[in-house]
């Protein structure tokens, strides 16, 4: 029985059928099968209770509508099956509605017709999609009008009207069930797919993080050897090292040193968020602590740091401190030598985020570079101008993303930069 049902609902579906087609075919098949059952019972009932005449009429008109799509689907004539499904009902409904009494409820089929089109050909009709439902609605209004003004054409026994009424209502209810069922199935399938995809993504992400961690760890070993041997050379050949040799050694050491800094950066980058505890933090306390740590830097550069009353927010303490530290030290670092840094911190409470701004009067960033600066190892200046590996802002980005926010910059070259970042108020881990 189950096998038969699945065979019927999969009529016409082949391995090459598109998913969108499969969906439509299935629903047409299900509705048609349902129609066959309901109408067969009705006709049988009419036939057995002595209305052979009507039962014959009903069979002649209804069966093409409900069996037609099944047959055409089986022969892969999908357009034809859809045409039958969409255009056959109108004359049939009108015909039966004016033939039988209002109590038989034939007129309510128009409501099914109004919705059917959205399920079947919505993606084809485009902007004409309202024409068909509108037609169905007109049909429904016309029938109401007809029943109000005229009497039905056929007189049948009250019992038979009742039978037809029951089977009609049953069909209408079952139709909506079939459509609900189909949609539910689709939704479940879609949810499952999303779940699988996100799981896959998560795994990939973990792999990637692990990869960065392992790579940077393993790169450290040969580098350490290089360092050790530079030291050994300096120690053992101290007396015989001439100026040129000294320069070469310096280059090697400098390069190795830079590589070590980059590897360390990569390693710390891959570790961000690995062991972060989220708690409610008073940002002002955090900044006081930070300015204490940076007091030397602030003093020698004569930095003016303006901090207003800031909120307490749910965040990872260590990481947020690093975020502020990187942005503040950047503001101090990227300055013209004759300028005293003025750094102003401000915030704004939004419905879903805390939005912070750190503005400075530094050298600014050209507009075309304002996106790139958040990538790891991106530097806009030569090493001799401004020191660094180009990792600070990539850390900031990763930290902000950990807090489900965004980071961006607004800047005018030679006037200053405003770094904005948002922290979600509802961090879901």
């Amino acid at each position, binding site marked *: 029985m189950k096998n038969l049902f699945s065979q019927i609902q999969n009529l016409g579906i082949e391995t090459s059928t598109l998913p969108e087609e499969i969906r439509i075919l299935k629903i047409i098949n299900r509705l048609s099968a349902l129609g066959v059952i309901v109408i067969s019972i009705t006709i049988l009932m009419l036939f057995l209770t002595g209305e052979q005449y009507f039962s014959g009429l009903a069979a002649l008109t209804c069966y093409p509508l409900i069996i037609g799509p099944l047959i055409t689907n089986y022969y892969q004539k999908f357009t034809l099956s859809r045409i039958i499904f969409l255009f056959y009902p109108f004359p049939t409904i009108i015909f039966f509605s004016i033939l039988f009494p209002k109590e038989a409820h034939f007129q309510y089929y128009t409501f099914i017709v109004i919705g059917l089109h959205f399920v079947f050909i919505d993606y084809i009709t485009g902007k004409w999609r309202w024409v068909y439902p509108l037609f169905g609605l007109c049909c429904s209004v016309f029938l109401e009008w007809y029943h109000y003004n005229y009497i039905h054409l056929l007189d049948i026994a009250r019992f038979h009207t009742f039978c037809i009424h029951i089977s009609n209502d049953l069909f209408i209810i079952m139709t909506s069930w079939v459509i609900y069922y189909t949609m539910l199935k689709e939704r479940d399938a879609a949810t499952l797919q999303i779940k699988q995809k996100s799981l896959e993504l998560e795994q990939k992400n973990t792999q990637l993080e692990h990869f960065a961690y392992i790579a*940077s*760890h393993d790169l*450290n*070993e040969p580098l*350490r*050897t290089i*360092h*050790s*041997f530079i030291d*050994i050379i300096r120690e053992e050949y101290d007396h015989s090292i001439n100026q040129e040799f000294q320069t070469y050694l310096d280059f090697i050491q400098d390069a190795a040193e830079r590589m070590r800094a980059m590897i360390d950066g990569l*390693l710390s980058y891959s570790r961000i968020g690995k062991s972060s505890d989220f708690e409610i933090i008073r940002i002002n306390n955090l900044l006081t602590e930070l300015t204490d740590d940076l007091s030397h830097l602030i003093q020698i550069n004569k930095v003016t740091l303006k901090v207003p009353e800031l909120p307490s927010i749910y965040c990872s303490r260590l990481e947020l401190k690093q975020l502020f530290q990187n942005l503040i030290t950047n503001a101090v670092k990227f300055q013209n030598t004759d300028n005293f840094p003025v750094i102003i911190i401000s915030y704004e409470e939004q419905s879903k985020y805390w939005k912070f701004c750190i503005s400075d009067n530094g050298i600014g960033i050209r507009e075309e570079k304002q996106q790139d600066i958040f990538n790891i190892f991106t530097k806009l200046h030569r090493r001799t101008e401004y020191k660094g590996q180009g990792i600070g802002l990539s850390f900031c980005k990763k930290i902000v993303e950990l807090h489900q926010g965004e980071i961006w910059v607004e800047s005018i070259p030679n006037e200053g930069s405003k770094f904005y970042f948002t922290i979600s108020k509802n961090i879901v881990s």
Partner: protein
Amino acid sequence: MKNKLRNILLIDDSKADNFINSRIIKKADVTHNIVVTYGAREALDYLSTSVDGSFPNPEIIFLDINMPDMTGWDFLEEYRKLNDNQKAGVVVCMLTTSYADDDKEKALSYNILSDFSNKPLSFDKLMGIIENNFPKLV
């Protein structure tokens, strides 16, 4: 240094690291003999092979953790099974900085290790280890 150690065993797959470590140990002049091995198996063979009826029993083993085939952990697992007369005085675990914290915990769980040191070995680190474990020597 008046009293020297008898024997120090180095276990590291890296030729360069072994070279650096033995160079520092030689310079510090703390032992009569340095034995260099390039893997855990070789080291275990060395420890369990008796020469003239006695086992080498090095006073210190410097053990690298990150090695191919048998890692430092695998070595410790096997070392545990050796007879007491085949074991060394002290096993020093050589850690790489990046893993140090995770590894320290793991290393402690073996109950064999007496000390840790971060790579690379330096003169100060070596003297520290000797001071900790052989106070009479210094």
